[in-house]
């Protein structure tokens, strides 16, 4: 179950991009829909946070960080 407002896209460009993703992958992944809707309310800041947490650290490799994320997601019973 998904909110229709997320599936529709907010601008012509977003709708076109979602259309291309649907053609290639069958559906737009849920996180992309949630980050794209009302970006100033949530997505813009959250994507910046994600970038810093997942890609800016020099203490662990990208593989290490992805492994941490996969482990935590599994503990939360959340698909990753």
């Amino acid at each position, binding site marked *: *179950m998904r*909110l*229709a*407002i*997320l599936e529709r896209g907010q601008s012509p460009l977003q709708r076109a991009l979602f259309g291309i993703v649907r053609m290639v992958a069958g559906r737009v992944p849920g996180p992309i829909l*949630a980050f794209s*809707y*009302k970006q*100033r*309310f*949530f997505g*813009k*800041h*959250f994507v*910046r*946070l994600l970038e*810093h*947490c997942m890609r*800016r*650290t*020099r*203490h662990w490799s990208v593989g290490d960080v992805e492994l941490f994320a996969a482990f935590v997601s599994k503990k*939360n*019973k*959340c698909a990753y």
Partner: protein
Amino acid sequence: MFGLPGLASARDLGRLIDCGLEVLVKRIEAIIHQLREAVMSGPAITDTVRRRSVARRAGAPADAAPSVHGLPDALRAYLDKVAHVPYRITDEQFEALRGSDVSDDELFELTVAAALSAGLARYERGMAALRGGR
């Protein structure tokens, strides 16, 4: 020893790594502040009082959650699941909410407020444990 001026021991290297990590954590916490402000106080369909009340409830332990005035029971039950056991949300529960007085925009905004608050509460408890608190 490590070929860098002023770096004499493994302990110095450890301090350098800790210092770099602290800088990253400060940057992350500045972004978290902006994110929290946008979700709790930024322009949205749902009024700020309701967003903040939902966030306070979601960030509290499940057995000590403050009540949210004026929230329909079905919406409250859904938001409690978002905060604590999101994997138990069913399509039927979600569909029932969409048929109620809550608009899709409100549902999106309150879901984000609850999920963000619960996630940040877990982050803060983890950081407190790392820093030697409870």
